[in-house]
Structures are given as C-alpha cells and as structure tokens.
C-alpha cells in the first residue's frame, strides 16, 4: 500500500498531470490561453498514429496467439455490457432521465485513449511490459458501447432511438478508430524495420507531445466544468468516481481470466475504467439529440478522466501487481 501511495504521489507530480492541472486552472481563472483546434486535432492524430504503430510493431515482435483473439473478444463484450451496469448505477444514484442515463452509460463502456496512453506510460515506468495488442483491444472497445446505449433506450425509453441508416458505418469508420487500427496494422506489417524508420518521430518526442495534449484537455475539461458545474449533483459526481472502479474491477477479472501479464491486466482495468469523450459524444448527438451533452461531457471529461489520470491509474497498477503476486 505504501508503494501505491508513492506511485500515486509520483504520478501526481509527473509533468503530464501537472500540465493537465495547469489547463484546468487556466480555464477556471478564465485565462485566454488556448490551443487552436487544428493543433489539438494534430496532437491527437500524432498520438493515435504513434500508439497504433507501436502496438502493431510489438505484435509483430511477439507474434499472434489465441490470447490476442480472446482479448479482443473480451474487450467487445465488456464494451457491450459495462453500459448496462452503468445504466443501473445511474438510475440508482441520480435522477437522470432514461435518455440521459443511457447516453452517459454509453460513454463508460467505451474508452479514453489518452487515459490508456498515460497508463501505458506508468506501467512501463514501473517495469511492466504490457501486451502490445492492448492497443487493438482499445480500438475494439470504442464502438460497441454505443450500440448498447441505443439498446438501453429501445428497452427502457419511450422515444425510439432507431439505428438510423448510416450511423453504424459512421461509428465503425470513425476517424480515430481508422487511424489507430490502420497504424496498428502498418506497424504489424512493417515491424522493427518500419519502427527504425520512424522511431525518432514517434518515440523520443512522445511524452512532450502528450504534455501539450493534456494541457489542452485540461483547458477543455476546465471550461466544461466551469460552465456546467450545476449539472454535477453529488449523485452524479459519485457515479463518475465509482463507475471507473467498478469498470476496473471487471477489467481486472477479465484480464486475469485471459491470463494477461500484470501490465496487460492493468491496461484492461484502465480501458474498462475510462470513459469516451470523442467518439461516443459525437454518436450521441446524432442518435440521441434529446440527451443533454453537458451531463455526459462533464462526467466523462470533467470527473472520470481526471480521476483516472490522478488516482485511478496508480490504483490499477497496485491492484494488478498485487493480483499477480508482484
């Protein structure tokens, strides 16, 4: 437990977290500091490009096994089922309408790729070497949760949230999924040779770019929290902290059952614990326009994301190490 505290303290004073906090503080202080939209998108493209490629190269190095395939399957199943858990928790802990609860629930089945990146970085610093294909698991977990949210509405809601023609394709061919999976496959095909070519671009500057990106996320999350504080009832706030722990628990079980390495278990926990703030919100605006975006964006980006970044990840590290007798 002391170790966890030390890691948590270490994590809290890493430049990555501090730049996120700088962003939040600047937003609350109403500074006009901002990252242009095109640059923010450029940073995000860089991160997806880099982690997809690295994941693919690592699979090229270690080969494919049934565990990879099972992990992908398990990821999809988790992404489908976690929203149902989230939905019932929300209905118990808050007064959200069916529509809002389903929309929020969808976010928690899906994932946050930056949380995943931050966890990978902590795992590596702690000497773990997670399976490279966890990137592919992340990609697989992005979309199913959206279908799950729509199913929740169809089941419990009054209005129909019909799977509008075109939406499914839009979700599956979403830019971040395509880039992440595409870079993964290219990394896989080109392996170490490819890596040698582009390593100076995707490895050395990676942590610095991540700092800048987290500054931007802090600015956006801070702005959201500042403007939408009122939607954050204690019940909702509680959900935003409890649900990642529930997700992480499920993720830990799944990782152990799959026989993943401690690093892999930790990343599975992180994926299950994290909530989407890019793919799912966009899909919800299309399919569930009646759901209030400030509720789901504030919870996902304003509560769960910072929670995972600061406290969640050290906990998931400690638990995964304890579970594997580390």
């Amino acid at each position: 437990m002391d170790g966890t505290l030390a890691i948590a303290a270490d994590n809290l004073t890493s430049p990555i977290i501090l730049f996120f906090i700088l962003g939040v503080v600047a937003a609350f202080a109403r500074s006009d500091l901002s990252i242009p939209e095109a640059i923010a998108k450029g940073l995000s493209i860089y991160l997806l490009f880099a982690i997809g490629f690295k994941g693919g190269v690592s699979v090229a190095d270690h080969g494919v096994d049934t565990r990879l395939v099972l992990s992908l399957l398990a990821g999809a199943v988790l992404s489908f089922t976690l929203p149902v858990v989230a939905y019932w928790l929300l209905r118990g802990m808050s007064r959200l309408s069916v529509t809002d609860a389903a929309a929020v629930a969808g976010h928690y089945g899906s994932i946050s790729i930056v949380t995943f990146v931050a966890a990978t970085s902590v795992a590596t610093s702690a000497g773990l070497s997670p399976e490279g294909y966890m990137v592919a698991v992340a990609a697989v977990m992005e979309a199913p949760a959206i279908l799950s949210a729509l199913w929740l509405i169809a089941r419990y809601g009054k209005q129909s949230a019909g799977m509008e023609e075109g939406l499914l394709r839009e979700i599956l061919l979403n830019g971040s999924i395509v880039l992440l999976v595409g870079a993964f496959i290219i990394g896989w095909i080109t392996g170490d040779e490819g890596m040698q070519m582009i390593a100076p671009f995707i490895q050395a500057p990676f942590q610095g770019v991540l700092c800048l990106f987290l500054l931007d996320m802090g600015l956006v999350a801070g702005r959201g929290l500042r403007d939408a504080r009122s939607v954050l009832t204690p019940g909702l706030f509680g959900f935003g902290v409890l649900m990642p722990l529930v997700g992480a628990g499920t993720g830990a079980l799944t990782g152990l059952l799959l026989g993943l390495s401690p690093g892999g278990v930790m990343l599975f926990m992180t994926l299950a614990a994290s909530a989407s703030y890019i793919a799912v919100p966009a899909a919800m605006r299309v399919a569930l326009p009646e759901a209030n975006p400030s509720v789901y964006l504030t919870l996902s980006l304003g509560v769960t994301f910072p929670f995972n970044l600061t406290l969640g990840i050290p906990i998931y590290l400690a638990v995964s190490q304890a579970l594997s007798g580390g």
Partner: protein
Amino acid sequence: MQTHKAKRVDIMIEAVMENRLTAALRKAGVTGYTVLPVLGGSGRSGQWTREGEVGRAGGMVNVSCIVRPERVDPLLDAAFEVVERHIGVVSVVDCEVLRAERF
C-alpha cells in the same frame, strides 16, 4: 447590372449532422450550397467554442443555399426534417443574384 430575385437560406446545424443535411438538400433538388465554419456561440443549451476541441460533438457549421424563390419551400421541408430533433437555426433572406441561370 441585371439581377434576379432569389432567397438565401442559412442553416446553422451541429457539425455531426452536416452530411445528413447536405444529403437531404441534394435529395430535395438543391443544386448548390456552401458550408461556412463557425467558431462558437451561445443559445439555450449554453455557450460553446471550438478552441482546443478534438472531437466533433461540440461544434456547428453554417450551410448557406441560394435558391430561386419557388424552391424555398421544398428546401425548408427537407432542412426541417433533419433539424427537427436537433440543435439548429434556419433563416431565410430575400436577395438578388447575378447569373440567375446558375440557380
């Protein structure tokens, strides 16, 4: 210079709905439109800005169509069907255009 009566319809709509709107417009026989970027704004659902945003969920675009007066109604019908459940502001202005054969 000879000008011709026309209408300019501006449809402010969420960026995620842009393709659905333009598809509906084309289906309704609208042959031309232009998409203008929007930086931010404020309405009943609060204030927003595109600064620093990575996702598409939070932004809007402005789709402008210049059409002959008699084509406004089918256009508005088509636009309304897309905008109906969504955030969106539709406005129509009388205008004059050069080169009427283009519309």
